[in-house]
């Protein structure tokens, strides 16, 4: 028998297993345990803040993005990741605005998926940090009941949030920096400390990262390079002056380093395309994190470390082009 119609396409006629949407949705899937841990520690507030940030991002993508862009899952990642960088007690409208800004100004103004320079989730957080500095640094610790809200999540937009009774405290990095109080590394690993929603359990984030790296949905060289740089640099400083500088384990497991190194720095769009470039990129982030945390005015340096290195990605790409087979020359990037 003769086929009625034949497809004629250019080679190759087979495709690989992964598509951009499967990569994106697998990243979303891998965030489920991280969100679960955040909910365990911060109660319904965690889910509300993450939902509000995601809604801001997803709705902006729907309204202003290209048609059907939601299906690729990238807006959902931005929203959830932004939510995970926020404190549990943040008013929901602020989280929503952060999502709108992240997707709108972090991604769509550049031309949508694949075109942006900065990580959209971190850009959203940077915006919130400068717009609402007090709300963004109010860190709830515990509540009498798991189901209690951890702050004035339901504050009316543009009004000052009510001061609620929830207990607040400083993050381990803040304690270290401003009050010279250390925190047990075991508490950091398990997550029973104050901080942003996704800053709590370093161990869970690390596990999810290992899963993504095994599926080749993130380039393991970036987190490896960040961890190595932070460990070596802060470890050496600790040896020089143990009273002034915290140890390498504290630096690795505190704050947003795990979340940032595994989920933010590895954003494919805003990280280098070459493997050699990924090592350089990771080194730069690790270096900046240590410098900002130890000598800067802020307690935490992961966000600005990544954003600054994002800006350098075109230069890193240019400097780390592969050497073409059978030549002495690299490509001339134009």
């Amino acid at each position, binding site marked *: 028998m003769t086929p009625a119609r034949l497809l004629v396409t*250019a080679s*190759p006629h087979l495709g690989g297993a992964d598509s951009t949407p499967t990569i994106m949705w697998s990243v979303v899937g891998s965030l489920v345990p991280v969100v679960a841990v955040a909910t365990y520690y911060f109660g319904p507030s965690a889910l509300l803040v993450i939902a509000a940030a995601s809604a801001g991002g997803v709705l902006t993508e729907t309204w202003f993005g290209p048609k059907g862009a939601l299906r690729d899952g990238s807006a959902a990642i931005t929203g959830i990741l932004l939510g995970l960088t926020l404190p549990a007690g943040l008013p929901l409208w602020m989280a929503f605005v952060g999502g709108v800004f992240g997707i709108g100004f972090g991604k769509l103004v550049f031309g949508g998926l694949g075109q942006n320079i900065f990580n959209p989730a971190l850009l959203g957080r940077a915006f919130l940090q400068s717009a609402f500095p007090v709300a963004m640094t109010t860190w709830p610790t515990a509540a009498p009941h798991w189901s209690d809200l951890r702050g004035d999540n339901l504050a009316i937009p543009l009004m000052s949030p009510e001061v609620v009774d929830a207990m607040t405290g400083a993050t381990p990095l803040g304690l270290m920096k401003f009050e010279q109080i250390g925190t047990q590394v075991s508490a950091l690993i398990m997550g029973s400390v104050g901080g942003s929603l996704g800053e709590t359990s370093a161990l869970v984030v690390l596990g999810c990262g290992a899963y993504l790296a095994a599926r080749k949905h993130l380039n393991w060289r970036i987190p490896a390079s960040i961890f190595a740089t932070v460990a070596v640099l802060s470890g050496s400083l600790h040896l020089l002056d143990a009273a002034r500088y915290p140890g390498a384990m504290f630096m690795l497991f505190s704050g947003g380093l795990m979340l940032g190194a595994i989920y933010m720095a590895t954003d494919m769009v805003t990280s280098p395309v*070459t493997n050699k470039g990924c090592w350089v990129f990771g080194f730069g982030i690790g270096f900046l994190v240590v410098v900002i945390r130890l000598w800067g005015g802020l307690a935490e340096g992961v966000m600005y470390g990544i954003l600054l290195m994002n800006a350098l990605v075109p230069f890193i790409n240019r400097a780390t082009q592969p050497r*073409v*087979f*059978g030549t002495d020359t690299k490509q001339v990037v134009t």
Partner: protein
Amino acid sequence: MARASGAVQLAGGVHPPELKALTEAVQIRRMPFPDEIVLPLRQHAGKPAMVIVRKGNRVERGDKIAEADGFVSSPIHASASGTITDISLWPHPDGSYAEAVRIAVEPFSAQAARPRLVPDWRGLSPEQIIQAIQDAGVVGLGGAAFPTHVKLSPPKEKPIDTIVLNGCECEPYLTTDHRTMVEYPERVHLGLRIMMRCIGVTRAIVGIERNKPDAIAAITATVPGDLDVTVQPVTVKYPQGAEKMLIDTLLGRRVPSGKLPMDVGVIVQNVASVATIAEVFESGLPLIERIVTVTGRGVKNPANLIVPVGTKLRDLLNACGGVTEDAYEIVFGGPMMGTAQANLDVPLLKGTTGVVVLTEADCKSKDTHPCIRCGHCLDACPVFLNPQLLGRLAMVARYEEMEANHLMDCMLCGCCSFACPSNIPLSQLFALAKNALRTRQAA
């Protein structure tokens, strides 16, 4: 990357599904002669052959019907006895039309070739052997169909020290070389011996991917005791069988950009091609038939067939029980580099390694997404180009800048397209760019 033994594989490359199980254990058999043979005059690298028969002429199987036009060209012979019905344009597997000789095959013929004198190659000088190979129209059977006699005549200033025999067959689905090595290992070694004598080299290495243990065993067991022939299993990875990749893997020599294997003292030949050299001196028949893998989930009885050159695709598929209801795309060659066919009347050429009938489920998705700069294409490129950058330039037709970024080193293996999660047709864009540049430079 020098490795005489030890771990043997190429950097870059991809792991497509192998899909060889359909035919790797199927014994080679001969297909019945079709009713009509169509022989395009352009079926080898170099200049097309010049026709020497006329409409109405009767030809016997093995008679020459077209003469080589110059040194880099190859003669063509009738693959069946019959009458020339027409010499005109005919659909060509590359998608165009080409001048072709049509032969109405004699029904009920025994298809015996004219009795011919078979010279004993041992009594011939290298020049005479090469002449006999040229007269028999032998070309490389691995796909590119480069005339073998040209490959056997390297210029004096480029000494050759090693022959690399390519038994990788890294394209998914295809088992032509695999079955040749399993069923005719002595023929492979005889062809290799003749080649070594022509070029005057004493060393040969056979590279075979590890997914063909029976071929490795058969070729190893039949290595002649008086020749320095090493059989080297190599890691299964596409495109391990690309000649520059294979030379790097086996010998640790990198062919410089824009140069040929002979510039590093190597000649690469595919196992099916050397088996054909042996056949020419065994039977005296020119290259008029070849082994073709007909496979894929879209064909009813996948097989490895001895097919007369010039058999039409339709007749070949019928010899394999026809296609299934869901046959969707028919590819000449392997699925990574092969050409999709739009017309069932296209003939099989000397260089057609296989016919793969894909179903819709086998074909890659048609959805594309924006580039997310994941860098998977850079990891996949076996010649270390930056397909992400080249693709961006191709989209806006900045071909000269692509050339400055080594576009011409691209061999269109398709690894970048295969690896791209956004399904951007990178290798297609590069093929377009290369053609555009060639046209501009010719103008």
